[in-house]
């Protein structure tokens, strides 16, 4: 059986009715003649129907554009998309002559290999930096130009352009890295004095109140933004100890019995270094972030003037609080008591509150209350107990924050409160190394080495011998090392500082094409390039030491070595592969990006998003680790889920989601849940992440999901829709069901050619709403009323009846070859930075033959791909 036969046969089995090249007849006329006969009536230069001209004269098959066009013609003819049904249809014999001619020429002229020169993607770049410099927490700066995606992949040669904005971003990033490795001399921060009048203290929400030239604090609670104030124009210029002088007083009205008010001073952040200990006391610290706290007792009456020292990390500041204030609206129980006491003591306040209903948040609400109170005669009857309780309850339980933000104004005006008149900050008196500085120093010492003498030529040379080899992923040439060394020398001469020379040379190497581009040229990959391709494929980063050594020893291209390395990386380091490949392949970035309509789900949390994505990753990881057959990606008997997704999306029983460990967050914890193999749950087709990524957060479109399955699971993307066809947006609230709306696809033959593949698949997935929950009816309106029923029944082009998604799952699970072919093509695209061409797709087809007996296990697919000739060619 010819390759063509088999491909057509396989494709025919799954979904498409394909026309097959029939080799039994001898052609009387040739392919081009037949194409001209059937196509040029509409697609010659003068008519150019649909803006498409079929060029058949002087075909230059060596040109990629020609091959691309002819592949398209092949697709249209083999799927019977063209000619349209209401035109003269070619006989089967004519069609097979055309297909044979196209197939022969395409295979003859599509060479294996031919990658486009590509730079590292932003993602690969960040991983490379982490790996080369040992900067484990390195992140790209916000605003780093994102890479254009091609079919979801960020690492495709054709879209990885190097525009000036990219090079500029790489250069900026390089300067930052060089700054850490060879820090520019830092100026000694002078001991300064900053005076902060009350008006320069921050008010956030209702945290503080400025009046009579003093800043009052009246509420206690842990939230900084609601219960603290701090200087708006001071931040610590260096990590150090500062002397803070406060002029402050407290006020407690007569008859109120509260402990002596405390004014707490605390640094926003103070991280000691475990070695040097607490910067003020020298006592050991954990190195964890903990504020330095000082408390001042302010006896009510005249203002006090007090000076204390506070240790503050660079960039931090000092906060002021009233921690033992009696008014706390964060603690709902305490707040309820406070409000009840207040309303009992002042019935007019309770009456005013009831009158207004819900006073506005903050000071304006308090003003409204006071106004209302003034209209209520003194001595009027207090609210009866039931009404009082229900009022207090609604304030303290339901609206504690907004009510608290209003009521706190009573305390600002009447006390108890503490009031800051001014603050003076002097320092840094002494300085210390904070945690992030210590971390940066350790990273620097690890990378650069301690006390290296950069004025010594040999020292510089040996540094660049090693550094460039790691950075360029191959041994540097002598002239490369020379060039960087002389750059160091020159800059050292100009500036008089060898550190500056090193700084410059390091940041220069970081924008060198030898670092930014990989797998250069054409032909067979050499061992170093093979190591790079393998490691960026399986680990998203540069080769580790062991892999690199096999390349340096020149043995990596030996089958056993390559196989062993592949197995090792898959076993120990495939965590990034599953995340990066799955995200690209399945378009999971949409899960982060989309904001589901609140009508669908009132609270959509990070646990939902993370749980959805983690399910995909863990499923793939499990499939690789356990070498599961491809059918287990389609119809497994398990799902991985966390509590949030399991409960709110999958609708799995509570007892199956119970946490196996005490104290674990059930919403967050991932677990494996068994499902029946004929359940709708389980498998890529119905995963919430996929259902969410193929919708828009609000409604669903069967065509989009159908196209998605054809493109990403079956590897048979339909051609672009013709121009001038508007998108059909179903009005599910109205009387037209999506099915009625899309009926036109089937009634018009030119639409039906593709939509008979697309729509039945899309319709069975209509059982899932925009966040992947099962539904039987469409929503009708905001109130959650049910609308039209979801109709999923349909028929595949080969006549298979589908009643719902489980039929489709079963169908695909029983025909895993096309899914395996699709996954392998996607893996190849991800690894090589380009889509496999016609010939290469046929080679992949052949390659997976050997895996048929075991039903295409996933790890074997990857391994077979890596060991193929295809993988090792540029």
């Amino acid at each position: 059986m010819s390759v063509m036969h088999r491909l057509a046969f396989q494709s025919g089995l799954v979904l498409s009715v394909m026309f097959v090249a029939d080799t039994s007849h001898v052609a009387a006329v040739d392919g081009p003649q037949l194409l001209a006969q059937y196509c040029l009536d509409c697609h010659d230069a003068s008519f150019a129907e649909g803006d498409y001209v079929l060029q058949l004269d002087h075909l230059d098959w060596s040109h990629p554009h020609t091959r691309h066009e002819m592949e398209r013609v092949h697709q249209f003819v083999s799927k019977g998309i063209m000619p349209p049904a209401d035109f003269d249809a070619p006989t089967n014999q004519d069609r097979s002559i055309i297909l044979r001619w196209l197939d022969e020429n395409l295979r003859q002229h599509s060479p294996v290999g031919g990658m486009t020169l590509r730079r590292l993607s932003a993602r690969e770049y960040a991983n490379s930096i982490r790996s080369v410099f040992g900067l484990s927490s390195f992140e790209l700066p916000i605003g780093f130009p994102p890479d254009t995606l091609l079919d979801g992949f960020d690492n495709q040669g054709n879209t990885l352009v190097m525009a000036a904005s990219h090079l500029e971003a790489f250069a900026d990033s390089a300067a930052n890295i060089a700054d850490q490795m060879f820090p520019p001399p830092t100026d000694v921060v002078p001991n300064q004095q900053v005076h902060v009048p009350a008006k320069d203290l921050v008010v956030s929400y209702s945290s503080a109140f400025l009046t009579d030239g003093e800043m009052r604090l009246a509420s206690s609670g842990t939230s900084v933004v609601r219960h603290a104030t701090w200087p708006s124009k001071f931040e610590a210029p260096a990590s150090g100890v500062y002397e803070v002088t406060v002029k402050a007083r407290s006020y407690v009205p007569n008859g109120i019995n509260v402990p002596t008010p405390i004014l707490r001073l605390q640094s926003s952040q103070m991280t000691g270094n475990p070695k040097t200990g607490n910067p003020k006391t020298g006592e050991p610290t954990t190195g964890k972030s903990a504020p330095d706290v000082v408390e001042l007792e302010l006896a009510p009456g005249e203002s006090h003037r007090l000076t204390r020292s506070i240790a503050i990390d660079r960039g931090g500041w000092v906060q002021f609080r009233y921690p033992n204030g009696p008014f706390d609206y964060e603690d709902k129980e305490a707040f309820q008591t406070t409000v009840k006491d207040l309303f009992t003591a002042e019935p007019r306040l309770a009456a005013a509150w009831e009158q207004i209903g819900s006073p506005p948040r903050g000071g304006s609400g308090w003003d409204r209350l006071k106004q209302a109170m003034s209209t209520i005669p003194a001595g009027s009857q207090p609210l009866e107990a039931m009404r009082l309780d229900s009022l207090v309850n609604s304030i303290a339980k339901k609206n504690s924050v907004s009510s608290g933000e209003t009521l706190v104004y009573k305390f600002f005006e009447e006390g108890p409160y503490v009031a800051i008149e001014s603050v003076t900050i002097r320092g840094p008196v002494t300085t210390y190394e904070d945690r992030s500085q210590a971390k940066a120093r350790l990273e620097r010492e690890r990378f650069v080495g301690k006390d290296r003498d950069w004025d010594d030529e040999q020292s510089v040379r040996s540094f660049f011998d090693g550094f460039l080899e790691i950075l360029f992923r191959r041994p540097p040439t002598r002239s490369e090392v020379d060039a960087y060394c002389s750059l160091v020398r020159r800059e050292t001469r100009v500036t008089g500082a060898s550190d500056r020379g090193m700084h410059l040379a390091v940041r220069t190497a970081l924008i060198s094409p030898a670092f930014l581009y990989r797998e250069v040229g054409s032909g067979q990959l050499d061992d170093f390039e093979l190591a790079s391709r393998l490691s960026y494929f399986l680990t998203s980063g540069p080769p580790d030491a062991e892999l690199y050594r096999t390349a340096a020893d020149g043995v990596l291209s030996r089958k056993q070595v390559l196989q062993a390395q592949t197995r090792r990386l898959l076993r120990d380091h495939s965590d990034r592969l599953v995340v990066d490949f799955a995200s690209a392949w399945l378009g999971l970035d949409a899960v982060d990006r989309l904001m589901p309509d609140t009508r669908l789900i009132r609270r959509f949390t990070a646990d939902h998003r993370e749980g959805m994505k983690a399910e995909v990753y863990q499923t793939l990881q499990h499939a690789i680790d356990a070498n599961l057959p491809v059918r287990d990606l389609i119809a497994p008997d398990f799902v991985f889920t966390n509590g949030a997704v399991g409960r709110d999306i999958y609708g799995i029983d509570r007892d199956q989601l119970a946490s196996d460990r005490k104290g674990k967050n059930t919403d967050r914890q991932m677990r494996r849940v068994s499902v029946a193999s004929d359940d709708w749950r389980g498998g890529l087709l119905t995963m919430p992440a996929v259902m969410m990524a193929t919708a828009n957060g609000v409604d669903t479109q069967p065509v989009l999901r159908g196209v998605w399955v054809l493109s990403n699971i079956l590897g048979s993307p339909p051609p672009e829709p013709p121009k001038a066809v508007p998108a059909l947006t179903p009005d599910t609230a109205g009387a037209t069901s999506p099915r009625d709306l899309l009926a036109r696809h089937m009634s018009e033959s030119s639409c039906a050619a593709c939509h008979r593949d697309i729509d039945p698949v899309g319709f069975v997935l209509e059982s899932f709403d925009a966040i992947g929950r099962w539904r039987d009816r469409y929503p009708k309106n905001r109130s959650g009323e049910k609308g039209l029923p979801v109709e999923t029944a349909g028929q595949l082009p080969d006549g298979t009846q589908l009643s719902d998604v489980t039929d489709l799952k079963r169908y695909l699970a029983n025909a895993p070859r096309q899914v395996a072919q699709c996954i392998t093509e996607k893996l190849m695209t991800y690894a090589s930075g380009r889509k496999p061409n016609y010939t290469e797709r046929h080679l992949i087809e052949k390659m997976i033959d050997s895996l048929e007996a075991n039903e295409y296990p996933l790890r074997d697919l990857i391994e077979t791909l890596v060991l193929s000739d295809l993988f090792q060619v540029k």
Partner: protein
Amino acid sequence: MMNLIHDGRRTLLKSAGVTLALPMMSSLGRASGEPVANSSVATEDPVSGAKRFVCIGSNLGLFRKALYPETSGRNFEMTPLMKPLEAHRDEVTLFSGFDHRAGNGHLNWDNYLCGKRIGSMSLDQMVAEQIGGDTRFESMQLCAGDIPRQRMVFSRQGVPLPMINRPSVVYRKLFASADDLARQEYLLRSGQSALDVVQEDARMLKHRLGTDDQRKLQEYFSSLRELETRMTRQLTHLADGVQEVDYELPAYDPMAPTMMLECEQMMFDLIALALQTDSTRVATLFIAGLGQVFTLDGQTMRAGYHALSHHGNDPDLIRDLIRVETEHMRCLARFLSQLKDRTDEHGRSLLDSTVVMFGTGMGDASRHSNRDLPTLIAGGGLRHGSHVAADPSSESGPKLGNVFVSLLQHFGVETDQFSDVSGRVDHWT
């Protein structure tokens, strides 16, 4: 939360409270028409054509029922959202019914300046190539609110350009302090000499490549050259010393989501300053919009901005949505006034030489529909004062791309095409 505030304070410290009067290219006090020495555009015709372009994109669009008048033409009746612009009525044109006939949903917001295909060079960048001239920044991309997933600006190579959302960063970029200057100068100067080394690396690489890949590597060489030009440009402007302006930044960056409207206003202020000092001639501003709950005139909105935009015709939500959008219109009106009150180097009002466009990639956020994108265009010496209505359901009718062609031609770009449409709209001719 604390981090936001923390970072905001850090970045702002330098510029906080610095109020200085300075040698500005043009200022309120200067007699109009006074020629300015060494102005690079002094030779151009001072009275015709627009020389600056500011383009604003609102993530959630504008509620069209509160924006569009019933009548088109010059005598359209005032609407709630046009009200803040009333003083500028004769300087603004309102387009209704124009769009790109592109896809729907938040993801397709990005069509706004690209036309039919996301990733095509955006309108502002086409204009920047034409008029960016040798100003310090060929264009600037700003954002009020959190940096969005949406992308507004795409370079000729299809690269989405990053946006800056901290006023203090914009300010420092424009008006660096002396310390920053010294460091920048060192980085630029030494960076230039480093380019020779990597250029040599690239040449070595080139020998190993086939023709197609050599063409691809050409991207690297031309980026290298462009980087060098940018560095030179920056160095030249650095030599002018610290540029000081009469503007006081608040002591914090309004980074908290609820501060977005404050941020929007500051960004408009900074754009006005950047235009006035001729630091740039093309700027874009993205107005974000997520779940933040605004408090306007002391009153807290009933729901977050994004939730309001999904109003589902609930009158309470619509009322609050219009209040938020009215704030956008107020910011815009204030910006137009600023431009009107300031003069360019020819003594002409800045507004006369600046086209200001306020639009969106989303027509109806409630339904995620990107049909009928409300668009306002002001200034730039165009003939304004009308409401121009088109039929969004007509395939042959005018589209937003036709409006863009008119703008491109107005900026002197010789083209009759934008994206998949050709021809200009007649309105301004």
